[in-house]
C-alpha cells in the first residue's frame, strides 16, 4: 500500500494498528463468496483478512463487487462515479 504517495509500500493500516478501532471505521472489502439464503457474504480486505459480512442492506450484490463495511455490515456498494 502506497499510503504516503511516495512509492514506498508502508503497510500503513497494519503499521499504525488501525485495525482495532471502535469498528466505526469503514473498510472497503471485496465479496469472495455469497450465502444469499442467510444474507451473508464472505468478504476480503485488501490485506487479505476475511470475515462474514451482512449484505441485506446492499442486496443484490455479486461475487467480485466492492462494498463498504462497518462493524460487519455492508452499508454501500462501491461504484464508479459517473461524471
Amino acid at each position: 500500500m502506497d499510503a504516503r504517495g511516495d512509492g514506498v509500500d508502508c503497510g500503513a493500516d497494519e503499521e499504525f494498528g488501525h485495525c482495532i478501532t471502535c469498528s466505526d471505521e469503514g473498510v472497503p472489502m471485496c465479496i469472495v463468496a455469497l450465502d444469499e439464503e442467510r444474507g451473508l457474504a464472505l468478504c476480503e480486505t485488501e490485506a487479505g483478512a476475511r470475515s462474514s459480512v451482512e449484505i441485506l442492506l446492499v442486496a443484490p450484490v455479486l461475487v467480485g463487487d466492492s462494498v463498504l463495511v462497518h462493524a460487519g455490515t455492508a452499508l454501500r456498494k462501491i461504484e464508479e462515479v459517473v461524471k
Partner: protein
Amino acid sequence: MKYVDEYRDAELGSVLAAEIATTVDPDRHYKIMEVCGGHTHSIYKYGVDDLLPDNVELVHGPGCPVCVIPMGRVDDGIALAHQENVIFTCFGDMMRVPGSEGSLLDAKAEGADIRMVYSPLDALRIARSNPDRDVIFFAIGFETTAPSTALTLMRARSEGITNFYAMCNHVTILPPLRALLESPDLRLDGFIGPGHVCTVVGAKPFEFIPRDYGTPLVVSGFEPLDLLQSVLQIVRQLGEGRCEVENQYSRLVPYDGNPAAMKVMAEVFELRPHFEWRGLGFISQSGLKLSEGYADLDAERRFSVPGIRVADPKACQCGEVLKGVIKPWECKVFGTACTPERPIGTCMVSSEGACAAYYNFGRFAREREVV
C-alpha cells in the same frame, strides 16, 4: 486497491493544495471542523493539515463514538460484565476506556468473562455456541454501526436465540452538531461532513446547518485527496458567498441515504429522551435505545445496572477537545499523565480520538513551538 490508491496520489494532492492556497482570502482566518473521528485520524496520518495555508485551521469534532462515552456508561458496562453467567462482548478500543474504578480490561483481569469482537455478528456467534450463558454486546457508535446492531438483533430473533442481549449506547450525529452550533465558545466557518454516517442517513438531514446557521458543509470521503477537495469546496463556497450542503463523497453517499438501513434502525431502535455525552453534557434525543418490540433483548432491562452519573477526572479536558475549543496538546495532562498506554481521557484511547491521533503521529511538537 481500486477506489483507494487514486485518492492518495501525491501529485494530485499538491495540485489541490495549490488551488486551496490561491482560493483562500489571505486576510481571513478559516476555522473548519471535521466532524468525524475517522477524518481526524486521516488528517494526521497523512499530514493533510501540513498542506493547508496557515490561515486554514482544522478543529476536531465530537465524531468518535468511543470518545463521547461518559464514564457512568463504562461503569454500567463493567457492572453487567460482573453479573453471574455473563459473557460480555465489546469492540477492542472500548476495553481500555477508563471508568470510575478501572476499565473493562481491568475487569477482565479480575476474572470477568469479557471478550473482544470485531462485529455484533461475532458476539451473536459466541451466544450461539454458549447456549447456557448470557451474552451481552456493548453496542456503540453512530449511524454507521447502529444498522449492524439492528440487523444482528433481528437475526437473533429470527434464529430463536434467547441468550443474546445488547447494551445500547448508539448515538446520532445531528443533535451534538446542533449543540455545538448553539455554543458561544465556538465560531465555525464550515464543516467537513461525516461521509460514512451519510452513507446511511444521506446528506439531506444536514441541510439545516447552512440554512439555519449559515455554515457550509461538505460531505467528505476519508482519503487525503477527499479531505483536500472538501476543504477546497468549503473555501470556494465562502469566497463565492454560497452556503450549502455539497457531496464530495458521491462515489459512496447517495443524497437521500440508504433507506433499507434506516428502516431496520427504525424497527429496532427508538430515541432516548436524552443521553449524556462526554464533555457536551446531556443532549436531548441524541441517543438510541431498543424499541418496545426488542425490549426483551435489552441488557439494561434484563439485568440491573447502577446508572450513576460520574464526573470526568478534573485533570481531563476531553470535553473542550471534543468541542474543538482547545487542541489536544493544550490539555494539561496530554502526553504526560495521559498517554495511549495509560489514558485518563477517552480521546487518548481510540485511534480516532483527536489526542491519540496527535500523540501517535507526533503532531504536537511543531504546534507547541508556535505557542
